[in-house]
């Protein structure tokens, strides 16, 4: 039950994008097409879960025993970067189309605050390994939910007769804001 609530909380109540405003860069960058958004979701889910877990292991296995907590950020980034490179290599081979459409946003997962934020949050909350893994996956799913919903809207928006000055990112931000407003309805759902 605890874990179910944790998952619900991470997806709906404390959605990484819409409530914590983390990972806005890919949220705006790869949401123009649903297929790209789905690809990005998969990539982020992979990187986030694995990176958070490995980071937890490194933190509790290496950094804390040797009193090296101050190396947290740099070592986490290192791990995340390696994960992202791995995904990039695999995608380039397995799905060149998706690789091309993700473009610069794929390597940019490295500097995605959502991924680092997730890893750091797990450490800060003193979560267990299991909770870390589940929370990271759920957080990535929350990111994915927001991204997929948003990309659906943006595909339709691309057909709209939007005033010139609002075209592109401007209207996307307005939409994201409204989406965030509606996600606030979940406030208080957990705890």
């Amino acid at each position, binding site marked *: 039950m605890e874990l179910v609530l944790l998952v619900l909380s991470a997806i709906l109540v404390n959605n990484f994008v819409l409530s914590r405003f983390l990972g806005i860069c890919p949220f705006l960058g790869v949401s123009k097409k649903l297929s790209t958004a789905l690809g990005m979701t998969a990539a982020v889910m992979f990187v986030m879960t694995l990176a958070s877990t490995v980071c937890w292991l*490194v933190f509790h296995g*290496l*950094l804390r025993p*040797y009193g*090296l907590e101050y*190396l947290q950020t*740099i*070592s986490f980034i*290192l*791990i995340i*970067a*390696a994960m992202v*490179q*791995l995904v990039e*290599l*695999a995608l*380039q*081979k*397995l799905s*060149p189309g998706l690789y091309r459409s993700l473009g610069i946003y794929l390597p940019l997962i490295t500097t995605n605050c959502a991924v680092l934020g997730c890893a750091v949050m797990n450490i800060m909350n003193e979560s267990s390994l299991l909770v870390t893994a589940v929370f990271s996956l759920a957080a990535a799913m929350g990111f994915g939910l927001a991204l997929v919903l948003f990309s659906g809207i943006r595909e339709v928006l691309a057909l709209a007769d939007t005033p010139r000055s609002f075209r592109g990112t401007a209207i996307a931000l307005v939409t994201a804001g409204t989406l965030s407003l509606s996600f606030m309805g979940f406030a208080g759902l957990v705890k």
Partner: protein
Amino acid sequence: MLVPTVVLSGIGLLAGLGLALAARAFAVETDPRQDRITEALPGANCGGCGFAGCGDFAGAVVRGDAKPDGCPVCDQETRRLVASIVGQTVQDRAPQVALILCQGGDDVAAKKYRYNGLASCASAALLGGGDKACSAGCLGLGDCQRVCAFGAVEMTPSGVARIIPARCTACGLCVAACPKDLIKLVPVEATIHVLCSNHDRGPAAKKACTVACLGCKKCEKSFTGDPRIRVADFLAYIDYEHAPDDPALAALCPTGSLVYRGDAAPAAERTT
């Protein structure tokens, strides 16, 4: 100091090792020439070459699907550079500019019905060729303006398209977009043009539009020997290979379909 260094480099080494293995497993061959060509191209992604953007064109050049001088927009130097990347040479070609061969605005051209429908020439042309009484008249709904990536087409107040020569890159997109085939690419240096595409006999053409070419041959007959303007099928054609450059020619035309747009013309009408 030693421990943190060892820990960090250890993590780095491990990650590096994993990546090296992954790189071998997921190895993909890419042609570095494609990136170099993409960099050399203008990057406007106008699609004038017929491919989906500059990157796609570069890939096509590398694969041999497109000629290295296939980019209609870039200058001669870039073409040469692109060709040299794939080890070829290109021929120089004269700079061109698009020209709309119609000046039949609503003030001079008659309409054959009241059009009600989409504001797009190609859609209007589905209904009996459009509402202009002239079968070769500009419909004025701006398909050429819409496809131009460089803002080089404007619509005159009387509803006929006009090229802004200074902005035109001769990419040819408007040529393909015009359902009435009114747009041609002509040499930039040419100064005399026949701005009409109507093949009807004189009286019929005149009834449809007051600035139509009637095929009267006054321009053709003004030449002694080999005429540089010829009338075929009731329409005059400029021989752009040997383009005439005489402002006086335009004065011969009874309807004003033969125009001079060289240095001696008013600034707004010049093409060069």
